[in-house]
């Protein structure tokens, strides 16, 4: 893989800038809330500026190459290096993590969830940002693991402290599930390290040499990684932490969880598990695809059974990540392209839906679908935004969701060599059915919350979209439409990198 080492400070600065903000926040007195909010805002704005600089200097003609690569010794004894870089797959997710954090910070300026304490809240959010961005740029398994785990604690505290009624249960479940996954993942990482000659943890090195491992060993190592990533995605049957975590998390936590954290798992499959262990990937792909379509259908039925708006959106995540995993499981560049697009699109759309859910909760003090209604008459702008996002989520052509879902289904028609075509075509049919269910539950949700007459919420809390909300939401809405209309904005960046990643499968 080609390495471009220009501007190699950019990624480190972009990743660790939030930590500078954390230090600044630590010395800011707790009572001075305005200063705290200002520091958090400035930090995330500065991070996004670095992100834009990264975007501008990214060489789009060589999107398949690692760019801004920095590599120095870190822990030489165990042959782990500080090795970072972005390619076309990492870049959108890396930037998404920065933008979403900024938007969440903006939203939080006006919406610190109970029990308050913005200082701690913003500190956790910025640590989270470093962990997420770091995971997407790490090119060394140990570095990747450290960032991957770094995300865990802030999110645990965010759910546990600022969450809803059942927050203790939800946060514990989230933590233990994820930790269980990463525990086995660590063993798998070590196994692949030793099986490739104990030379390096660098991902490009392992991609070069991982294929040489005996197939039966590969299959076991893949199993360890699979559990680690599948819990994070989350794939059926490891998904049960997700509805609880989402329902109990504060709005900001839900948004970050949906928009970025779930992608860590799918990104792990695309970046690590599949390229380093190609033979095992072929063995595992039908099972992954099978679990993915089960997830699609299960998620859809789960949605139809929900009475709580936030829980419904959470279950819809299970279904959507099923499409992403189906695309990945085809092991074709078409499918993986769709999957990466789907990751970004789901991040934008579901993140947005959770924002809306938070605002609905704030206005109506309930998320019971049965108690909502008439949003279009009472809060028309919020209602229309919900409408747009529901349509995007169900995969309406012209909006971002379509380009993640439709090509993923299509890719299952023609999976990579060595995969059973008839199995995949069955998956395709089931997944297509899933889109119908998706339309059903999302339209049902929209109809019951937005249409009809308001159900007696006349108090002054019910107001339309505020300025803070507009500022936080508009970029997401613009992106949803823009990527929907001109999907090549994204596909153009992703595709070369996907081709590069899937070289072992003949493209």
């Amino acid at each position, binding site marked *: 893989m080609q390495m471009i080492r220009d501007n190699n400070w950019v990624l480190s600065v972009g990743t660790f800038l939030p930590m500078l903000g954390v230090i600044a926040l630590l010395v800011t007195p707790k009572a001075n809330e305005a200063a705290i909010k200002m520091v958090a805002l400035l930090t995330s704005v500065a991070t996004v500026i670095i992100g834009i600089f990264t975007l501008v200097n990214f060489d789009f003609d060589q999107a398949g190459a690692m760019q801004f690569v920095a590599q120095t010794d*870190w*822990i*030489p*004894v*165990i042959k782990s290096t500080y090795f970072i870089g972005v390619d076309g797959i990492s870049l959108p997710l890396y930037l998404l993590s920065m933008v979403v954090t900024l938007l969440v910070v903006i939203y939080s300026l006006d919406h610190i969830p109970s029990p308050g304490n913005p200082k701690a809240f913003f500190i956790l959010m910025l640590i989270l940002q470093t962990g997420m961005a770091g995971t997407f740029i790490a090119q060394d398994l140990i570095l990747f*693991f*450290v960032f991957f*785990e*770094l995300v*865990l*604690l802030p999110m*645990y*505290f965010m759910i*546990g*402290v600022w969450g809803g009624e059942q*927050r*203790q249960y939800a*946060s*514990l479940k989230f*933590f*233990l599930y994820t*930790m*269980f996954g990463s*525990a*086995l993942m*660590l*063993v798998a990482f*070590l*196994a692949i*390290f*030793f099986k490739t000659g*104990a030379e390096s943890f660098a991902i490009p090195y392992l991609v070069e040499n991982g294929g040489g491992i005996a197939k039966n060993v590969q299959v*076991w190592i893949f199993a*360890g990684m699979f559990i680690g990533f599948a819990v994070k995605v989350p794939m059926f049957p490891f998904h049960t932490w997700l509805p609880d975590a989402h329902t109990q998390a504060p709005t900001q936590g839900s948004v970050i969880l949906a928009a970025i954290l779930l992608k860590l798992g799918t990104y792990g499959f695309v970046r690590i598990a599949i390229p380093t262990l190609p033979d095992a990937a072929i063995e595992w792909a039908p099972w992954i695809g099978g679990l993915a379509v089960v997830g699609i259908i299960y998620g859809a039925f789960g949605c139809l059974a929900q009475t709580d708006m936030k829980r419904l959106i959470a279950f819809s995540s299970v279904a959507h990540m099923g499409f992403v995993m189906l695309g990945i499981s085809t092991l074709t560049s078409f499918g993986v392209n769709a999957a990466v697009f789907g990751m970004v699109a789901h991040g934008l759309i579901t993140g947005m839906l959770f924002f809306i859910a938070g605002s609905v909760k704030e206005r109506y003090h309930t998320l019971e679908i049965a108690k909502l209604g008439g949003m279009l008459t009472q809060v028309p702008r919020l209602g229309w935004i919900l409408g747009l996002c529901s349509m995007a989520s169900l995969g309406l052509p012209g909006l971002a969701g379509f380009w993640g879902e439709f090509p993923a289904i299509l890719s299952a028609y023609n999976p990579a060599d060595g995969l059973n075509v008839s199995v995949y075509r069955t998956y395709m049919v089931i997944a297509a059915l899933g889109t119908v269910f998706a339309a059903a539950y999302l339209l049902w949700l929209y109809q019951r919350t937005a249409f009809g007459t308001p159900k007696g919420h006349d108090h002054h809390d019910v107001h339309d979209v505020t300025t803070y909300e507009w500022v936080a939401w508009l970029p997401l809405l613009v992106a949803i439409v823009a990527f929907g209309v001109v999907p090549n904005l994204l596909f153009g960046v992703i595709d070369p990198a996907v081709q590069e990643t899937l070289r072992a499968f003949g493209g």
Partner: protein
Amino acid sequence: MDIAGDFLPPTIEWFALSPYIALVAGALILLLGSLTPQWPRGWYGLVSATSAGVAGVLSVLQFANLADELPRTLVKGALAHDRFGLLALIAICVAVVFTSMTTVDADTSDSLEHFALLLTAALGAAIMVTANDLVVSFLGIETLSLSLYVLAASDRRRSASQEAGLKYFILGGFASAFLLYGIALVYGTTGQTSISGIGSTLAGEVSVPRNDAMLLAGVALLLVGFGFKVSLVPFHSWTPDVYHGAPTHVTGFMASLGKVAAIVALVRLFVVAFPTRADDWRPAVFALAVLTLLVGSVLAIVQRDVKRMLAYSSISHAGFMMVGLEAAGRIGSSSASDGVSSALVYVVLYSVLAVGSFAAVSVVSQHASDVTSTSEGQSTTSLDAFNGVAKTNPVFALGFTVLLLAQAGVPLTSGFVAKFGVIRAAVSTESYVLAVLAMVSAVIAAYLYLRIMVSMWLSVPASGEATSALAPKLSLPLRVTLVSAVAITLVLGVLPTWLLDVSDSLALFAR
């Protein structure tokens, strides 16, 4: 044996023995304190902390010296002078310094005996970790154990403490008997007690060894004896009761220093003396490791009392160290030495965590007993006592949280470095089963640390205004202890390079 002939006094390398001398000197100075009136508060602790500190600095100097010297034995082969033992010795000194500082603040009477016993225990542990002779090792074990028996029973107002001391004494004596019998059987077959000598004798046997049954019986008895001391399942049953009953700072001392001494002595004995029988003892170590990991972590999460929780968690940690020993037992593998150094690094890092965690527990329990002095009989270390600690003292809670997370093995803490090393050794020697089981048990145990964190951060104090009215108070020595423990945990977690750099030299034993 021929006793006649000219007697050659052993050459004494005074500098190499200086850490031991510093510890003894401290204990003797404290005993001389009986001739004088009671010293001002804190002075006894100062003496013991100082002498342990001096011993620690001297050990560090020798550790550094060994960079360009070969490991060797001292006092006619009685003690080993190698980095393996010296790193453990440093950890022991650190544990004594920390414990002295937390003890100063403890409610128990400010008596010279307490601190003198800390130093004699440290001396026993120091001898255990460097002993190159089974008899010397046994002397160390007894010196350590006798001191700990008394320390465990030192809180005379609580009957639980008396019970802990007695229980520890009886079971410890039982374990010593096993050890002694094992030593006798090994001596019986090999004709010597020198650990490195046994190793070379067994390695020198050309044909199929005779008396193997007797030797293996000896090895098994030694494993059982050390299993008691290390508290491996199924020899662990004393641990929760004793850890729970003993005064909290003593518990921290036992968990750190006792563990270091026992694990290091065990690893040295098995790796230096019995490598040729590794195929025989490794399955036993494997079984003990699996049992210890699973039973320790599963029983830990059902406890209601924080001290008992941490006691079971220390059992589970011992299981991790056994994973390292199991890897060290794969003699044929090129990375068997990784097992040795990873077990040592694990126990050394754990010792700091244990002292710090139990110091934090003692702060909370002290506070709880101040607040709820009216209601007798209620344990001051129950999980409820931790409710809402973060609200009254967030900095303290944050420090304790770091220690707990490190015990759970979260990255960027020393606990992760420790677990990573052990798992790495296991994977590199292809014991995947053990590696996976160890990680699973780490996740099970993580629930326990989370429960304590949940209590501190997410629960409201049971007796509302009474608790929030006064925050747990921390004296200066306690603050220093906690801050240093947390600092060590984080610095070694983020930059483990130094520790890992020397880890190769750790597996070079003096023979």
